[in-house]
């Protein structure tokens, strides 16, 4: 039989309907099958790490928040925790609980956003709107409690800026329960719908060994069966709350969806627990001294483990802030998943790592 197949080189992106942010993937295709992929990034590099070296430690909170819109709170939290460690500042317990509540609200809204985008990646527009409708409730809570919808600027060094009153805590618990109820509908679609399963099951498989060796983080790593979640370290109030990392073993796009759905439920239960257990008291303290030395601060963002390396020299301006964001660590895993799949599966695989390109490039 004559071999009619030929290789072609296709640039996917930087602008593409499924991509919320610009990234280019250079694909080598054999007919419709992906042979190899190489990422080209750098379209949204803003030099925020450099800017954080120019501003003082308090102003830098607002700089690092703007690394990523969706996990902005977590960026600020990671930065603040690093500096609180360097200055030996003990954060009051109420502030730690408030941070947990806002952190989990952020996880909820991020995962709902992702579920919507995932639905969009296989063309299920109405499911996309269902997810975003639920997300709107979370954004309303954030605006009512912290003042803004997404970049909430609630963290300061040594605590949080605003308190949440008892009425609002009750309202948050009530809304968390409502969201958990309305999740039931969309959960069924993501997990049982015939077409959805066809587009996700067996697509973009990453084995446990591969995921571990390629340094994958967050839901991508957990969907491959590694129960690693930085929240287990017990930062903020996680050590006092009851939760378990959500894991799956299949390692495909379906498993990653499932892990995030489980995490959504976890997050809602954490919000309810934290709102119940929250102690009375101060919400912020002043920094004990000027920061000096080096530290690594880690926490679990919706997309996975985020790492800040902070170097301070005893003044108000830091000498280095280095940010390793989750998507940066997940790109090698993405490249491993792609070969062997049809070109039409690419949007689903790409979305399944929950790419955040502005995070990656800073």
């Amino acid at each position, binding site marked *: 039989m004559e071999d009619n197949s030929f290789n072609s080189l296709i640039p996917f992106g930087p602008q593409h309907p499924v991509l919320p942010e610009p990234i280019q993937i250079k694909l080598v295709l054999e007919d419709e099958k992906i042979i190899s992929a190489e990422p080209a990034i750098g379209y949204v590099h803003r030099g925020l790490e450099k800017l954080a070296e120019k501003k003082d430690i*308090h*102003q830098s909170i607002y700089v690092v928040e703007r690394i990523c819109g969706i996990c902005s709170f977590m960026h600020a939290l990671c930065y603040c925790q690093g500096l609180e460690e360097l200055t030996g500042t003990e954060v009051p317990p109420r502030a730690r609980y408030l941070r947990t509540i806002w952190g989990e609200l952020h996880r909820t809204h991020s995962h709902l956003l992702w579920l919507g985008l995932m639905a969009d990646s296989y063309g299920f527009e109405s499911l996309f709107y269902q997810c975003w409708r639920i997300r709107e409730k979370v954004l309303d809570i954030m605006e*009512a409690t912290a003042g803004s919808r997404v970049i909430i600027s609630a963290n300061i060094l040594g605590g949080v800026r605003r308190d949440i009153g008892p009425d609002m805590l009750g309202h948050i618990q009530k809304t968390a329960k409502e969201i958990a109820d309305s999740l039931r509908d969309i959960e069924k*679609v993501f997990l049982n*719908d015939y077409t959805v399963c066809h587009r996700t099951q067996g697509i973009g498989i990453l084995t446990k060994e591969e995921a571990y060796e390629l340094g994958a983080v967050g839901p991508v790593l957990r969907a491959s069966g590694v129960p690693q979640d930085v929240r287990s370290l017990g930062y903020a109030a996680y050590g006092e709350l009851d939760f378990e990392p959500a894991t799956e073993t299949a390692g495909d796009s379906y498993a990653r969806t499932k892990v995030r759905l489980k995490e959504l439920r976890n997050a809602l239960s954490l919000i309810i627990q934290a709102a119940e257990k929250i102690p009375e008291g101060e919400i912020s303290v002043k920094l004990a001294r000027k920061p000096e030395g080096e530290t690594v601060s880690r926490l679990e963002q919706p997309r996975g483990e985020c790492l800040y390396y902070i170097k301070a020299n005893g003044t108000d301006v830091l000498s280095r802030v280095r940010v390793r964001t989750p998507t940066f660590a997940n790109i090698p895993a993405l490249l491993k998943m792609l070969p062997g799949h049809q070109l039409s599966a690419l949007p689903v695989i790409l979305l399944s790592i929950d790419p955040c390109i502005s995070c990656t490039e800073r």
Partner: protein
Amino acid sequence: MFEFLRPVFRNLLRRPSTREYPFAVREPFRDARGHIEGIDREKCVFCGICAKKCPADAIRVDRQERVWELDSFKCVVCSVCAESCPKKCISVSPVHRAPAGEKSRCAIEGAKMETPKKPAGINKEACVFCGICAKACPEGAISVDRTEKMWSLDKEKCAGCMACAEKCPKKAIIAE
């Protein structure tokens, strides 16, 4: 198999969850950070602390000319200025700004007053070295040692907001 049918039928029977913006506008949340409205020109002492704290460099304060200026298109509405203001004279509105066709700034000229004051020293007779002024200072420019009966001012740090003189229970701080 047809899992999405249920939400579809339910949505048919429900009212829409969107509003008919711009005809129906939601009430803003009480503590929302919509935009920085401006300053109270009677109260502002043009100390410039807001401009120093602003992470976006959006505020410019001229102490001599008594002008406070905000570049609303640089402003990230973090409201750090309003929180750090020793006079609490910056107002934040919960209403978001409407989209604009061109860039604009918000410049406010202060009420005419005598030349701006700065703290210079203390009246040693009256001062009890309680340290209230040091706590009140937003810039941390004053240090008070109660046992040594020492009061010192870091003129570099001092922004001249006179918060110290206002808080002093003995009115012992002398202005320039």
